[in-house]
């Protein structure tokens, strides 16, 4: 059963992580493979809201076949980390955290070297072929994300950090 938690659909302020003394986004997108049917609506919604096209190659989150168990799906979406590896690795300091805790790539500073995609554990940033710079999830600028809105089965959910952490732990059986 999907977790029922009341979330604020719009980000208002970042959350301070106590010991790390770092700001992160209030909410985070969580994927539950048990519900996912591989309809890829999240990718269509993402591609449309960012690039005005239905082509899923433009999406900023990825759903793929799970090679281990046929008929199930794996997903990779940005979780706007406490210590983003992409931010640490960027040679031009093009990646920054904004006032809401969203990790963004500045299109003016990015030189398209691709180090961010290499260092990210799930390779979220991808090359934008027209601008030749790297692009990544911006959590729809703090609005209710389109991928979550479009998800047909509640497999993608927007959850507050704390609940999301517990939920993922439960999903993985840790």
């Amino acid at each position: 059963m999907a977790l029922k938690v009341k979330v604020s659909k719009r980000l208002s302020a970042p959350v301070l992580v106590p010991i790390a003394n770092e700001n992160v986004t209030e909410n985070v997108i969580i994927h539950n493979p048990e519900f996912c049917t591989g309809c890829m609506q999240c990718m269509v919604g993402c591609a449309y809201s960012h690039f005005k096209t239905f082509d899923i190659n433009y999406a900023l989150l990825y759903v793929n076949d799970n090679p281990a168990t046929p008929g199930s799906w794996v997903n990779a979406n940005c979780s706007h980390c406490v210590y983003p590896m992409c931010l640490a690795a960027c040679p031009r300091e093009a990646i920054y955290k904004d006032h809401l805790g969203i990790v963004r790539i500045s299109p003016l500073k990015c030189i398209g070297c691709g180090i961010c995609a290499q260092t990210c554990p799930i390779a979220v940033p991808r090359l934008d072929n027209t601008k030749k710079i790297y692009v990544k999830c911006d959590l729809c600028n703090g609005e209710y994300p389109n991928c979550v809105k479009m998800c047909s089965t509640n497999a993608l959910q927007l959850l507050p950090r704390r609940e999301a952490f517990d939920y993922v732990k439960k999903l993985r059986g840790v």
Partner: protein
Amino acid sequence: MTASKSKTNASNEKYGYFLGCVMPAKMPWAEKATFLVAEKLGLSWDYMKETLCCVRPGVWKAIDPDTWLTLTGQNLALAEKQGVTLVDSCNGCWITHYETLEELLDEPEKMAMVNKHLAKANMRLEGTVQVKHFLQVLYEDVGLDKIRKSIKKPLNLRMMRHIGCHARKLGNDVMPRYFDEILEACGVELVDTPYDSMCCGLLLYFADPKTSIYRNVFKKFKLAQDLGVDAIAIICSGCYDQFDRGIKILEDEGDPTGQLPQGFDVPIVHLSEILALAFGYKPEEFGMDVFRTTSPSKLISKVEGGK
């Protein structure tokens, strides 16, 4: 706030059946069968009249959520005016109505926005309308016992099931379970496959037709062909639309992925047809073999032979 709380006094509830786009134009047999089933179960069942497209969630929700809400509001306002409980058998229609109602009741400013635009057409939405899925009506309002009692001729058929994505919105143990239990009550043996929960690909067709057809549809077809099932049972007319398109593409262009070298001849049947057959109606009564892309003649002869 749940939009579709089940009522206990189901017997006097007036249902308005929402047809949607695909049902009247591509599945007349399922439409007729639904009416036969509802008549047999003693429901006060009629069309919801003057309906428009439910406003497809896959397209409009991405393009313009406000238009999506307003145009769905028009359908909901119509149902309210006609004083019926809106019943959808298409998952896409159901999710549109259900989510819109939930969102509008949750956010009064959106409701005001919708009513402002609806006022141009002399309509008004209060939000008192109830939205139900056909499965919810069958399982929650009618009940499995009554369905079991009405069954005259248990069908000895093997079937693959495909319920569709949106029906999983309330959880895997709500509508998918209803679907399985109703089918099993009809005497259908369900074959489990790893791709049971996979999407039909309708939502993906505009974005990536090759993945949509070759991966999602043809994989299911291949499984059905390999397992030698009598039919694929569906509930959603949107899924039927996509399977129909898959069959047409297979006939027109063949299969470059080599999954279906012998073609495809497994019929795709709606739940209401299975119920109608189990209730003892003849296939001709709802025109079962007319206007279909894969002929169900084998299935019909099996049902009629097994008297």
